[in-house]
């Protein structure tokens, strides 16, 4: 298959890379860029473990092709915070016990970030709806929603 040269912005940095024409974005991020925070769950756009933010909107990176991100801005979990400086959402997830196995966490955090970027003061049902495309099978949604609500309360 042919390789395509794409340029895009990844976590605030301009990147140019050769990508296979039929490579999934999630594989490109994990295998070529080394960003393994984006998880592969169902591979069919159901579970949300591979959620990334493309031009301000969440997307399942398992059903996006790498060449599709040419000219776009992509944020992965690695772009949210660092070990030294956690994002307020990451701090709230730790404080509220919203992380158990951690597999859904990167996607949950990015869905929450996309919500708060668009609407800094969401209601409870808007928070629940914003994470409705992210399946969690162990922590439970209550603590996750509480963590997001905590950030909303702290900001306002």
């Amino acid at each position, binding site marked *: *298959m042919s390789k395509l040269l794409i340029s895009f912005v990844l976590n605030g940095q301009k990147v140019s890379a050769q990508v296979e*024409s039929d490579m999934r974005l999630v594989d490109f991020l994990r295998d070529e860029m080394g960003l393994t925070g984006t998880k592969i769950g169902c591979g*069919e*756009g*159901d579970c*949300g473990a591979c959620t990334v933010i493309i031009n301000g909107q969440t997307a399942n990176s398992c059903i996006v*092709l790498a060449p599709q991100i040419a000219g776009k801005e992509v944020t992965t979990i690695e772009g949210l915070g660092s070990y030294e400086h956690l994002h307020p959402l990451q701090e709230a997830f730790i404080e509220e016990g919203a992380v158990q196995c951690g597999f859904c966490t990167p996607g949950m955090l990015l869905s929450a970030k996309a919500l708060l970027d668009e609407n800094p003061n969401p209601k409870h049902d808007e928070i629940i709806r914003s994470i409705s*495309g*992210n399946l969690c099978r162990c922590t439970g949604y209550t603590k996750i929603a509480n963590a997001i609500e905590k950030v909303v309360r702290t900001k306002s």
Partner: protein
Amino acid sequence: MSRFEYSRPECLSEAFKLMAENCGYSLLAGGTDLMVKVKENMVKPTVVIDLDGLEELKGINIEAGQIVLGALTTHTQLEQSEIINRYAPALAKAAGIIGSPQIRNKGTVGGNMGNASPAADTVPALIALGAEVTLSSKEGIRTIPLEELFLGPGRTVLKPGELITLISFKVSTHQGCSFQKLGKRKALAISVINASASMEIDPETNVIKQARIALGSVAGTAVRVSAGEEILVRKCYSPELIKEAAEAVAEAIRPIDDVRSTAVYRKRVARVLVRRALEEAWSQLHVTRGE
């Protein structure tokens, strides 16, 4: 997963050329259905043609009482559009109930049609709104009623080299429309059954001039049920009339048993969903007229 090339045309004529040159093409709009089918080897394209560069297929416009949607309009755009929420809230509701935020951000109204799932949520809403679809190819364009687009599950009348470009429907302050969905959970659920209904009344006499009732997941394609519509036309709204129409719809449809539900259950809930759709369409009518 089969291997394929990727192309991103910048205009329709370039897209037509690519479609003519590559008989094994698949069109990529939001990719929420295509990429799953590719993964499952249900389709094996040689080339994926990404339509995202076709600006002429984007946008929501209202002109002379008619709403025109570009086929690449996403479900999120439909759900958030001021025009759609004001003139066609049933469509905003249908779009807002599909899949998940991630799916709605990517999935498009044209893709929802092209995929031709009998459970598609925007399709019954658009049929009830009286939508027409414009199909374009390098030979020319043709416009057909939406219900005539579908031949069966996954099958449409689209010819090789042809694609869905626009969806249009008339709006009126004397028309109300509603969408109802029953799924197994609220998010990421494919419809067990869905129903949409619209009613247009004569503002002088309150007589129902036109009614459209469309259901999904009860046949191989979304269906319009004239048996229910005929009961409403030339009558005045009453709870009894609505009940009678809903009964007639449930009687007329021929759903099947499948992975998501049974024929018996679908017939029973069709009655409830159609009644709710007609009640809500009626109340919409009063909202849009400011009563």
